[in-house]
């Protein structure tokens, strides 16, 4: 049976439904002075899918993620989110639209506890004003307790109950990565960006993280775009893969298509210049 991947929605081999396009990047070009970090790249991310962005070091993957999360402003090209063109936005406004992300180098709030970090992820769900919070009793407390419950679900899901009240600064690397994922997940994002979620992990930690990513996608239907260097993981997890090299897109498709793409093989294994 062949699936038409261009249809409005289709069902994958493992029974998940992939919906319409959530994020559409059209002809993005990003320059830093004379350096062209991203050159005329277009690709889309569909609802419910796991989309991987791969490429050798310096290919522009993280820059791409920064464009999506609004941290970099591309010189050319358009970002379409949920069917409408996204105007120039500050990163916090992008977050309010339902985008969450993790960072390549963990960017947690070291002075706060794990629970506070995760609660911070839900800040767009809480809207008690300063006065209501100063008084606490009433709306602020009610909101706090409701959101605490939502956070506890995420904590259960990612199996970090035991470190709930520990300051993040004291945690080992692997757990920090997981807490960061929890913070992003707590926002209930419609698109979750993961920048190298498995960097620096051992095999078991990678397996755990892969399980969390798959479960997240499966149970909550979270759309995920991730950057990863571990090819085994990428090929196993993702529905579609974008391959970048020197700021250009050299491949886009299912893992199998990408694996057999000559340009991709050349980029990773090198090509002889004879």
């Amino acid at each position, binding site marked *: 049976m062949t699936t038409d991947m261009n249809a409005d929605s289709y069902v994958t081999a493992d029974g998940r439904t992939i919906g319409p396009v959530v994020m559409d990047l059209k002809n993005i070009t990003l320059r830093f002075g004379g350096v062209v970090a991203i050159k005329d790249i277009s690709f889309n991310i569909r609802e419910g899918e796991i989309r991987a962005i791969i490429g050798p070091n310096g290919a522009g993957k993280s820059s791409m993620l920064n464009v999506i999360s609004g941290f970099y402003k591309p010189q050319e090209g358009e970002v379409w989110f949920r069917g409408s063109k996204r105007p120039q936005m500050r990163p916090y406004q992008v977050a309010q639209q339902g985008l969450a992300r993790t960072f390549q180098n963990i960017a947690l709030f070291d002075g*706060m506890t794990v629970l506070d970090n995760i609660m911070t992820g839900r800040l767009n769900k809480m809207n008690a004003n300063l006065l209501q919070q100063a008084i606490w009793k009433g709306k602020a407390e009610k909101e706090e307790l409701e959101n605490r419950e939502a956070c506890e679900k995420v904590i259960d899901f990612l199996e970090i109950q035991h470190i709930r009240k520990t300051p993040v600064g004291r945690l080992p690397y692997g757990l920090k990565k997981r807490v960061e994922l929890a913070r992003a997940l707590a926002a209930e994002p419609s698109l979750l960006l993961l920048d190298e979620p498995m960097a620096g992990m051992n095999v078991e930690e990678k397996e755990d993280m892969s399980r969390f990513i798959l479960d997240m996608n499966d149970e909550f239907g979270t759309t995920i775009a991730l950057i990863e260097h571990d090819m085994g993981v990428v090929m196993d997890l993702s529905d579609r893969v974008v391959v970048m090299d020197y700021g250009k897109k050299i491949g886009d498709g299912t893992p199998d298509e990408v694996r057999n793409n000559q340009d991709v093989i050349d980029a990773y294994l090198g090509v002889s210049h004879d």
Partner: protein
Amino acid sequence: MFYREAGDFKTSYRDDNQTFPIRLDRAGYWIVLFVAFCVIPFFVNDYWVNSIFAPFFIYAIAALGLNILTGYAGQVSLGTGGFMAVGAYACYKLMVAFPDINIVFHVLIAGGITAAVGVAFGLPSLRIKGFYLAVATLAAQFFLVWLFNKVAWFYNYSASGQINAPERTVFGIIVTGPNTEAWAKYMICLVFLVGVAWVARNLTRGMTGRKWMGIRDMDIAAEIIGVNPLMAKMSAFAVSSFFVGIAGALFFAVYLGAAEAGESFGITKSFLVLFMVIIGGLGSIFGSFAGAAFMVLMPVLLKNVLVGTMGWPTEIAAELEFIIVGGLIVIFLILEPHGLAQLWRLTKEKLRLWPFPH
């Protein structure tokens, strides 16, 4: 042995969220409040209020304010003295212009005016950080003091250039001016302190506090997960200056009775409050109290020991006081850079295990 959470089961998130999760702490808190409100007022005299309680309470309010800005939101400020002056002069102008309105409102409105001034001087924080911001707030300190000395309107053209607090009452009890009774002075400062501390605690444990701490710990990540840096920093400046303004208003109206900008609210005041916050512990409500207590009580204690007990001449003791307090600060910061609050936390952790070592 008794100080531990064992047996104190939390069955709701509300219980789990409370300020003092350990039963003994909660009991201690209510006992302290009871003693402060119902016991001490009957025994205080002028000496205790003027040299210990009033300055301690007022500096604690100022330290809470600065701690919100520096400890929680991570924005260094050296303008505390200047902002206290804004509170004091605003309170004075209001007291004179609207004598029929209760002084409590004057103090609160003075805080509000200081908040607005604080936000205006906090705007550079959107572009600059750390030492550079400290220098920018230093400019606020000097500018504000200069302004209050230069523009005669602020001190109602009085010949001395001073402002004097007129007599005002709360519920018929005199709280400002020379005829104030010791316990009235004590009570009005205490009520404001408890109110400010309660608000500070509520703000710092909720989403506002998390936004502030997010900006402090990693501003880029905070912005990417949805914190509006403008709103977070400006709210920190507003709340902080509001508290500092209240402290300034009380310092002038209740404690000093008469003030002159350069003398009462100079740069030394900014440093004093900053020392309190650093010694007490950045990012801690308890630390603000501990720091204020340390800086207010230490000189009094030393004076009593040196002059009272050891019989040294007053002027030598006064000089030595500076040396000893300075030395203590240095030693203390080397031994425990996170301040008295951290020391207190460590003690509590040890207490939880006591009498066992692990």
